[in-house]
């Protein structure tokens, strides 16, 4: 399989935000991610697709070192954010995660008010001094997450009382409130209905203007709709990475073609 690993096929990215080289992840004895090298562009949406268990979420969680919380996970290789190795001993993962925000598969608002959910990140990072500044940050984040109109009259009611789609947008608002540079989204729409999904997708396109967004998705249509670059993972390896249009219309690797045409997966 080695000859098919085709890491050289990574397209040239004009301005790379994150560059990962030869990343390997082991969960105990299991080799979950094999020699992945990817350049993730700034102000672009990059989609990771692939069947379940192919390592795309694992790789996503490497990008903000969320794998550190799993005791048996071991990461090797190098991942650089703006040229700095995020796995350097001097890097504090807490500072990294303030720069690289994350939205999870299942909406996971804190059991607090909507306002407190959004204000939590800015508060612990000391982004606002006065109450009015915080109000402004919360409003901006909720507006960006397209939740302001629905939530402005109930800012102090519990975030867990929102509908599933609203909760996920609340989680996005919480992630953007800390002004990250990269936003990681782990299947953000898998628990949502088509209408909420459409809203979140619109939002992702909107967020692209200020962030680089990396999204893991099971839905190839979604990848095709929202992303500019797509990476296809299979069995822990990066099979193919390129312009989204090229991946979906003219895949170079036969496995990619089988997957997008529904023959494997």
């Amino acid at each position: 399989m080695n000859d098919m690993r085709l890491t050289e096929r990574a397209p040239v990215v004009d301005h790379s935000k994150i560059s990962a080289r030869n990343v390997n992840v082991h969960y105990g004895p299991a080799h979950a991610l094999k020699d992945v090298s990817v350049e993730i562009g700034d102000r672009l949406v990059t989609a990771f697709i692939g069947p379940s268990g192919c390592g795309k979420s694992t790789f996503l969680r490497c990008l903000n070192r969320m794998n550190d919380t799993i005791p048996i996970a071991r990461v090797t290789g190098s991942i650089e954010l703006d040229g700095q190795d995020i796995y350097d001993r001097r890097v504090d993962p807490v500072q990294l995660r303030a720069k690289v925000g994350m939205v999870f598969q299942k909406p996971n608002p804190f059991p607090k008010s909507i306002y407190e959910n959004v204000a939590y990140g800015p508060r612990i990072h000391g982004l606002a001094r006065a109450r009015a500044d915080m109000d402004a940050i919360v409003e901006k984040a909720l507006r960006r997450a397209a939740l302001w109109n629905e939530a402005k009259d109930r800012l102090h009611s519990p975030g867990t009382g929102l509908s599933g789609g609203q909760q996920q947008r609340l989680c996005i608002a919480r992630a953007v409130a800390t002004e990250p540079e990269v936003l990681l989204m782990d299947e953000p729409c898998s628990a949502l209905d088509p209408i909420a999904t459409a809203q979140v997708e619109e939002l992702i396109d909107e967020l692209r203007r200020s962030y680089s967004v990396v999204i893991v998705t099971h839905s190839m249509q979604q990848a095709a709709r929202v992303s500019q670059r797509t990476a296809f993972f299979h069995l822990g390896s990066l099979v193919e990475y390129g312009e989204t249009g090229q991946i979906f219309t003219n895949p170079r690797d036969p496995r990619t073609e089988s997957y997008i045409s529904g023959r494997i997966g």
Partner: protein
Amino acid sequence: MTDLPLDAAAGPRPAPRSLLEADPRTAARNRAEARFRAYGLAALLVGLAALVLLLGSILWNGFPAFTQTRVSLPVELSQAELDPEGTGDPAVIAKTSTFGFDDLIEAALAKAVVEAGIGTDLEPGDLADLLSSGAAAQVRDAVLADPSLVGQTVEFDLLASSRVDGYLKGRVTRESLADDRNLSPAHLDVVDALAARGAVSRGFNAAFILGADASEKRPEAAGIGVATLGSLTMMLVVLGLSLPLGVAASIYLEEFAPKNRFTDFIEVNIANLAAVPSIVFGILGLVAFIQFAGLPASAPLVGGLVLTLMTLPTIVIVTRASLKSVPPSIRDAALGVGASRMQAVFHHVLPLALPGIMTGAIIGMARALGETAPLLLIGMVGFVASNAPDGVLASFTSPNSAMPAQIYEWAKRADPAYYERAWGGIILLLVFLLLMNLGAVLLRRRFERRW
């Protein structure tokens, strides 16, 4: 999508069966379910009956302890006896011991009997058996508190002796007095006559709830109040030490500690400690706190330390379970916005685990409250706490007992009047426990949040 060849799937179909009648398998399953329900209900009813029986017998046996018979008696506080020179100085009056007051009370009793027109063969000294042997001390204390009473005839409400009390409560009968050396049926005639004149009354026994234990001769004067204070002090020590220690240990083990052989070893041993018989903790407390550290024996401080050791494993186990039950997505969410591990724990995980931790702490405390065995070894059982401690700090270090120890002590004593008090003590202990559980429920309500 099936791999089975079509013709194999379409084998001969079983004969159609009516939906209106149960087939044998369904009928058997339904019978098994009905049987299981009946067993469950029966178990529940047996348990309920046992509970009713238990509570009923406790209340039935314990309620008499909450009333006490008193005899109101005009006592002439003779100036000639108490203060011949009329100084009015308490120091002079204090020279008269309780024996001197005994004489006054005997005289007063004899006079009352004569005035009531009761014919009896009993000597004044025998008549005094109607009253508690602490009656003289009661009169003496009153006189010392107010020396101006000397020379007057004052009406005192004196404690009746435990057998007179028992007679009015129906515990003592004329037949049961046949071979009793303390009281004779003739005494009861006097009691009846006095009661008819309204001099004997049964009232609420506040001294039982608030007072101190008394010596074996005076069950009528014994109370559980000081032992309650001892229990309360111990609970303060337990709460103050085991909650912060237990919660801190649990948070460390659950959220921060690396998972390795050493933490596994600690984990197993915490589980083992929770199963160690409580008397072992008593021996540990005796050796560590009294013999080695030199803390005073019988002190609620030491009792509290021993019970803390006993409660800690329970609190750690319960706290860890409630930390574990907080969904990991909450931790991820906090870490994802850049919170540190500690911020994630203290801002998000701990508040969600708090109701469970509270419940665990209260369960541990309730167990500690009812514990007698470890107190045996540090000298808190069998100790007669005859007066309340001098102050707040002294209540931690001065010798005291605890409610269950006091109950055990009373149950051991020969006089049947103590039997009644043991049951009454159990009622108070249960009330205490109920209050603690009520507190737990209220705290739970207060902190409960859903996610």
